[in-house]
């Protein structure tokens, strides 16, 4: 019974926090020192995940923590910190989780190299398949497409 209560309570909490997170659009009126800074800060904040939210970046989320972190990113950019420093600042506090673009490291090798692997694997299968078709073709005598049509017609008559 108590367990159920707790469960429904946490569900309620989730609902409440969602309500405030999802819907209203955050708008900041932060003044950047330069348009370049703004561009860099926005793209950086777009690639960082809000640690509290369902699945939103720092720009799109309206949650308090996203607001704080967003401001932090903006300020750090204006202070002249580079992207690596800012990313380091975030991950040392909130973990790898906040990076929408995971770092290339042992546990993400499959993630980053997987697509290339898939491409090579697919290409290999496709290559084998096409080669098989062509070998088979050279075994049978060369047919021009006209011959082939003629053959088709003959075969068809046969099966009728």
């Amino acid at each position: 019974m108590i367990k159920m209560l707790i469960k429904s309570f946490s569900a309620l909490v989730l609902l409440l926090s969602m309500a405030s997170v999802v819907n209203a659009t955050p708008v900041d009126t932060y003044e950047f020192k330069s348009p370049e800074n703004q561009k860099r800060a926005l793209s950086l904040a777009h690639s960082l995940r809000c640690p509290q939210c369902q699945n939103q970046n720092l720009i799109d989320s309206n949650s308090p923590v996203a607001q704080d972190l967003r401001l932090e990113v903006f300020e750090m950019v204006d202070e002249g910190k580079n992207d690596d420093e800012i990313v380091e600042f975030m991950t040392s506090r909130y973990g790898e989780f906040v990076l929408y673009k995971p770092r290339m490291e042992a546990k993400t090798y499959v993630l980053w190299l997987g697509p290339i692997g898939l491409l090579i694997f697919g290409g290999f299968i496709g290559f084998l398949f096409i080669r098989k078709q062509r070998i088979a073709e050279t075994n049978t005598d060369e047919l021009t497409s006209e011959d082939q049509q003629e053959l088709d017609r003959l075969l068809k008559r046969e099966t009728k």
Partner: protein
Amino acid sequence: MIPELGHFSLIIGVAFAMLLAIVPLVGVARKDQYLVRYAWPLTYGMFFFILFSVIALGYSFAVDDFSVAYVAHHSNSELPIFFKIAAVWGGHEGSLLFWVFSLSAWAAAVALFSKGLEEVFTARVLAVLAMILIGFSLFMLLTSSPFERLFPIPMEGRDLNPMLQDVGLIFHPPMLYLGYVGFSVSFAFAIAALMSGRLDSAWARWSRPWTLAAWVFLTGGIALGSWWAYYELGWGGWWFWDPVENASFMPWLIGTALVHSLIVTEKRGAFRNWTVLLSIFAFSLSLLGTFIVRSGVLTSVHSFAADPSRGMFILLLLGLAVGGSLTLFAFRASEMKSPARFQLKSKETMLLVCNLLLTVACGTVLLGTLYPLLIDALGMGKISVGPPYFNAVFVPIVLVLFGFMGIGPVIRWKKSKDGELKRQLLIPAVIASVVGLAAPFLAGGEFNIWVVFGIGTATWVTIMTFRAAYNMVKTKEGPVDMARLGRSQLGMIIAHLGIAVSVVGATMVSNYSIEKSVRMGPGISQELAGYTFKYIETKNVVGPNYTAQQGQIEVYQDDEYVTLLRPDRRQYNVRTMDMTEAGIDWGLFRDLYVTMGDPISRTEFAVRLNYKPFVRWLWFGSIFMMVGGFFAASDKRYRIKAKSTDTKAADKSDKLATA
């Protein structure tokens, strides 16, 4: 009383499905035509009882019967009537009912339009569909019935989530479900073909219009979802690579591959195992999508309330359906050598390459979507995979795909004539390169490699599609003859142009959007992308179930009045939720998009101004694709009876295979 009738009706529908899953198959095994023919009345019976069940739920919504838990949780007496109806599929239980209903509707459609097909084959297809339906109905009846009563009866409902109170959301889920579920028809065709051991052109030809129809619905569902996200979420984004979006995108990618693979199987009798496999994959990914959305294993902005027990049930269904069908595939896949021969430079190769690229693209999305789960399951911590990853990996793959997509329609089957291909490709390639290279300078003034590739490939696809159309209509004597263009060719042309249009939209809006967040209040003007935004006043607006503060912003271009934008900040009464409703002035070449943020002072608000070039092209392109798919699905050769042999290429290879 009505909800109980609905519940009961649903159970009867499932009973019909159980008979449908067994009787025709027994008939096939015993070679008893009498039993086989039971498939038809059973299918219609199943459909009507489930239809009644949906109507009963809709009725409960319409009359505000809050004694039904699902109605009480998703409706309110003040909710406008069309949202009450839409609320039928607005929550977990109801959307499941709708899922099951669309499955029965597809089954009924197959039964109705299958006159040209072999009886035994259709009966098998219907039986497979019934099996899927049983699985999902049991899931609904046992874990999440929408007809559950509530006691004590609440005076008022909790209202539909305001996010869902929107036209886009009335149509988005049904379209998506019809698409998802539609792939179960291709799946059922593939399973029936495996069971009967005839993976031939005839099967591909029967399956193709259904697959195309499902693809059209899924395209529409995804496009509507993206459009809804664009104007409703207030961020002006149109694609977030969120797990739930990916869940619908993966079956779309595989479905697209399937539609093309079916062409080869139909016309040339080749790629049969591949086509079967894609049919299974498309449906499996639809199921996987359902799993992702409803089990809560991945965090998403728009998932249903998570519940592991539901996840367990769907996983069980997924395991049975996919595991079973892949086992069947492993044992029954055709070992017969493909009768079709083709050379490296041929339409077959192009379609194969495009198929592989689409599958790899899908595999990439799958990898990225599930990777956080894999890492977590291995106890290696929590990571996120988001838009930067997908953009970095997915975009290059599809750019290559577009390259081949241009060649596919013009190249000949089997083997291209020497020199002919080069002659056709050279000039368009030069034009596309020039246009691509010029585009970033014309649009933004500085070089941008993504714009070069985006606009370049879009141009390439467009020119080559027109070239293919020209090849089709030109006669040997010279003059063009539009009558030579069949509906499926026309469909291909329109759909491929749709891709080009969407690619232009995606490229432009991703690279040349401008946004600005500013403080605005009466009398304050702001400039953006050559437009002047003038804040006039804030109005208070009262809606049917919300109140709102509405900014009145006049837009001028070169002192000429353009439009009045009215972004809202809404407070919904029942759920006490705040929502922003963007003010949008849409245009063919640009959208102006304004959202109201928090109030800063008594009269001033934080306001976000957006300039979104070509954003509409994304959805225009989708409409093109849908229209194209519709044309292809309605080609008259699919309505010809299977028995009437004609001299079409399709039959030739078929006969070759059986000869």
